[in-house]
């Protein structure tokens, strides 16, 4: 009788180990996937920018500087050699785009151009999607880290080489609202609305 009990116990423990391991694997994969999703959105933004700049260039001759900033930041982001400089370039691009979208409010003739409106919407949603992709990434990282750190799954995690992942932290530039000359525009539109980086 006792051998049966022991057998059942062993099977139960083995079963638990397997399921704990599998859920750690699943979470780790979700984290990797969430990171790639951010990339997808960032690349989307790279593709949209040339069209937007083309479309507004004609109307906004006096905003040379803003436009150039955006184009340059994009070029840097696309050609960045490593992750660190790429992230820095992407942050610069976010700031530049925010400024551009805000400044576009000063040009009412832009609103009459349907192409510009469409592109503006594309950019707004891309900024939001980047924001939410980062939030989603942080949410999965939270789930993974909790699983890795709490008892008893931390026993499995430590033995099989699962580590806590790093949260995506926005830099101070991310939180900054671009400076817009309020005397020229009515509602100041810093650009993308989206979640704060949670």
């Amino acid at each position, binding site marked *: 009788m006792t051998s049966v009990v022991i057998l059942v116990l062993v099977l139960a423990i083995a079963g638990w180990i397997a399921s704990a391991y599998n859920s750690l694997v699943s979470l780790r994969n979700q984290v990797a996937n969430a990171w790639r999703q951010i990339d997808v959105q960032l690349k989307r933004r790279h593709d949209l920018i040339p069209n937007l700049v083309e479309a507004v260039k004609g109307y906004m001759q006096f905003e040379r500087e803003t436009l150039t900033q955006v184009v340059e930041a994009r070029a840097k982001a696309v050609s960045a050699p490593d992750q660190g400089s790429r992230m820095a370039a992407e942050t610069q691009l976010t700031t530049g785009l925010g400024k551009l979208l805000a400044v576009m409010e000063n040009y009412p003739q832009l609103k009459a151009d*349907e192409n510009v409106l*469409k592109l503006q919407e594309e950019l*707004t949603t891309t900024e*939001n999607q980047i924001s939410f*992709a980062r*939030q*989603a990434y942080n949410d999965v990282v939270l789930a993974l880290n909790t699983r890795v750190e709490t008892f008893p799954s931390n026993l499995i995690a430590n033995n099989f080489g699962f580590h806590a992942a790093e949260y995506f932290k926005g830099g101070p530039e991310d*939180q900054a609202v671009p400076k817009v000359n309020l005397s020229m525009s009515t509602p100041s539109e810093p650009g993308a*609305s989206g*979640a704060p980086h949670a």
Partner: protein
Amino acid sequence: MSPAATDFRALETTNRRQTVVLVAVMMTILVALGFLLDCWAGSVAIVNGRLVGFPVLTVAALAFGTVQALTSFYAGASLVLMSVHAHPLSPDSIEHKTVLDVISEMAIASRLPVPAGYVIDDPSPNAFATGRDPHHSALCVTQGLIDQMDREELQGVIGHEMSHIADYDIRTMMMVAVMVGGIAMLSDFVFRMMFFTGGRGGRGGRGGSSDRGDNGGGALLAVAVIVLAAVAPIIAQLVAMAVSRQREYLADASSVEFTRNPRALLRALEKIAQVESPLKEGTAGTAHLFIVNPREGLKDDDEGFFDNLLSTHPPLNKRIERLRAMAGAAQAAAQIPQT
């Protein structure tokens, strides 16, 4: 029931737990009524402490309810969309494209596949989600919602609908409907059998080959069955409505989880609370799916204890109160610029 919680995660946990409790209550009633009925009918009996026989009537009621539910489950989404005359959102119109974009944004935030987007041509602001699981789901808004909400508020409302999809609420409510239907059917069996057997109880039917000899017990059983059969459908309905309300509170909290912005849904609900005219397309079958029940009236929503018990949605002012508590707690966090 719960204090003014300011943390959406705590709210979500409480709501999920309460749903489980409610569903368990309903299952108990169903099993109890079914068992008593089958005892009374003689299809099961307790012999020497063991259960013999097959609970035919309980199984029949459940089977019928399940078939009904499965049919609507699989055909469900398209039927619902047809019945409210919804048509797909078109990316050609900037307005509709914005809504489609917001739906994509919420899909990313909730880590779900993007549901199909639909619109109803009605000036009253409202929205609903339908579909059996996240891969086969649809989200529908009214033209009124598009016209009256800004982008942030749209995010709040669509976030709420996405959470219905994420939490499999449609499926939960269907299970609940199966049980309510099953209980109603069992109750029906009881009263029909009373009619046919003159209130004696159907001992002579299946397997009642020998009289157990306790007539006193038989009468007690009969009374128990009749009482339960009378009240069970009402209780089941009340429990089903309670489950529905819990899911609505949960969806509000989850919307905050996805947008991380309580003000988004808060402002949307405040705007909806101002609206006078009910949604024209809200039929009896679909009314409970909307973010605000279009048939239960919107203004002065807190009508009283019994009205609220029968309502599929919590009173609008209570929902707004909870969101305000969350917004107050989040005040210190980032200011969200408007787009």
